[in-house]
């Protein structure tokens, strides 16, 4: 399972020049608006023809301008979920869901349809018209419609951007389930690091039409030099729920130590994805004793990037990479250079989801 993307396209003052390969799973295309994210997915879907490019999904070449090959969008089997759902207003939810299914060369069986309807919680909506649905419901139907087309790849162009925070939190668990359950390569366009940290396996960071950095979600978000400020720094790693402490806090064991966090209602042994934001880590050279924070992790400074009056510090905590952002003055005072030992004082931990 792989997706190969190479394209060059110039339109007015904007030039797109990107090349990347993903190994399947969920790849986040991350970048500010205008970085070319939507253009890239449009090229992959076949809705936009680049001046130069080559696209292959699982080895099947969809576009190769050097041999003048371009599979039309309707034959690419790259279903796309748009920001504005784009449900067909004259069809019921059921007919919307089955639109791609009816046209798929290999159709999903009845059990799969039921499963998707179940997974996305669409059972009660089937007879309704799209007009009466909430934003979140529309997004779920659009997602189900794309899935049931049995595509080789799913393109998600900021599917949550038009939703408010509450609706977004309503959809994210569905997307997480989807990412865990299907083996479908997904390209997820987003400018929200929260969504990326929760969903992605890999991240491609775009800036001004170019790939600025690419890597695993576990490495890249702490790579102070590669990402240089955008996306925001912060560690993402997996941990196992080890049990509960006498004081009620849950213990998360990870490759580098143990974190005590507010009580989690999941069974012991559950694998969880955890995020530590750079702003939520303070650094000390000596182990602090009387302190309100529950977690102090011994680590070694990996890389340091000074910019302005701030310093981004990558930390190695066992095999897990963390990142902290402190002021340049603090960094100088503590003498934080690569290789130096330090203590990371963790102010808050976000448990994102069950790990896949």
């Amino acid at each position, binding site marked *: 399972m792989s997706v190969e993307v190479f394209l060059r396209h110039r339109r007015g003052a904007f030039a797109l020049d990107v090349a990347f390969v993903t190994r399947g799973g969920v790849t986040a295309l991350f970048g500010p608006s205008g970085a070319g994210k939507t253009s890239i997915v449009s090229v992959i879907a*076949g809705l936009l023809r680049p001046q130069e490019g080559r696209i292959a999904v699982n080895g099947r070449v969809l576009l190769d301008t050097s041999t003048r090959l371009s599979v039309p*969008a309707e*034959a690419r089997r790259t279903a*796309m979920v*748009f920001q504005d759902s784009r449900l067909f207003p004259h069809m019921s939810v059921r007919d919307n869901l089955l639109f*791609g299914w009816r046209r798929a060369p290999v159709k999903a069986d009845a059990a799969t349809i039921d499963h998707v309807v179940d997974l996305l919680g669409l059972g009660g909506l089937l007879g309704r018209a799209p007009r009466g649905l909430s934003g979140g419901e529309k997004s779920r139907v659009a997602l189900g419609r794309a899935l049931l087309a049995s595509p080789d790849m799913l393109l998600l162009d900021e599917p949550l951007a038009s939703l408010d925070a509450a609706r977004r939190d309503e959809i994210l668990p569905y997307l997480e389930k989807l990412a865990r359950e299907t083996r479908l390569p997904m390209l997820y366009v987003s400018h929200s690091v929260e969504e990326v940290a929760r969903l992605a396996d890999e991240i491609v960071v775009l800036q001004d039409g170019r790939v600025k950095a690419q890597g695993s979600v576990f490495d890249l978000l702490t790579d102070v030099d590669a990402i240089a400020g955008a996306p925001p720094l912060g560690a993402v790693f997996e941990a196992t729920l080890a049990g509960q402490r006498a004081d009620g806090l849950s213990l998360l064991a990870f490759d580098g130590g143990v974190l005590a966090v507010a009580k989690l209602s999941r069974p012991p042994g559950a694998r969880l994805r955890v995020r530590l934001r750079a702003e939520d880590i303070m650094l000390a050279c000596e182990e602090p004793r009387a302190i309100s924070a529950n977690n102090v992790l011994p680590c070694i400074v990996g890389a340091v990037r000074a910019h302005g009056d701030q310093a981004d510090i990558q930390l190695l905590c066992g095999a897990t990479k963390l990142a902290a952002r402190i002021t340049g003055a603090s960094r100088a005072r503590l003498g934080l250079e690569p290789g130096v030992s330090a203590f990371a004082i963790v102010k808050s931990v976000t448990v994102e989801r069950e790990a896949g």
Partner: protein
Amino acid sequence: MTEILSPAESQALLLSLRVSGVAIACALPFAFVTALFLARTRFPGKTLVDGIIHLPLVLPPVAVGFLLLMAFGTRGPVGGWLLAHLGIRFVFSWTGATFASALITFPLQVRAIRLALEGADTGLGEAARTLGAHAFDRLANLTLPLALPGIISGAITAVAASLGEFGAIITFVSNIPGQTQTLPLAIYAALQIPGGEAEAARLCGLSVLLALLFMTAGEFATRAARAWR
């Protein structure tokens, strides 16, 4: 109906309905294709093409009737050929009245359908493409049903407009009771006879009723079209 209307009156009414109904039904597919073409393409000279399509709407109907007579009369280049090879004669016949009506109201239909097509979200077509729908599939299952309310309201308005057509019909196919004498022509004929004002007034009342009926129906269709989106 015969108790309220005289035989001549019901003849004119039925002929009017037949001429208008057949005219719009026959013109509709052409109007749809033309509207689709105008809505989806961009080319130099499009304004000119658009203008030519709108000509029957802005020309004096008498001029349209005269031009039709020149071309489709039995001695006209097209009419002569049709008569000689296919035995089709427009002049003095209800088919000629229908043809004139269709031509006059064609721009009205094109406008209504084009508006409906241009109002449709092109994003839906893109979504359908990524879900495997080919061009004809999208036309049949997306474009056409979405434009349908606009098409229906355009057709009803065109029928209502064509019921009032006078100049083109009388010039092209003359005023023959039972063949080409639609309601407006019957009103005109009544006014030519001394003391025919009462008859003309009755026919006028009938025209008003008919026009109101169709305009109301058209308005309902337009409202339905809006409610859909």
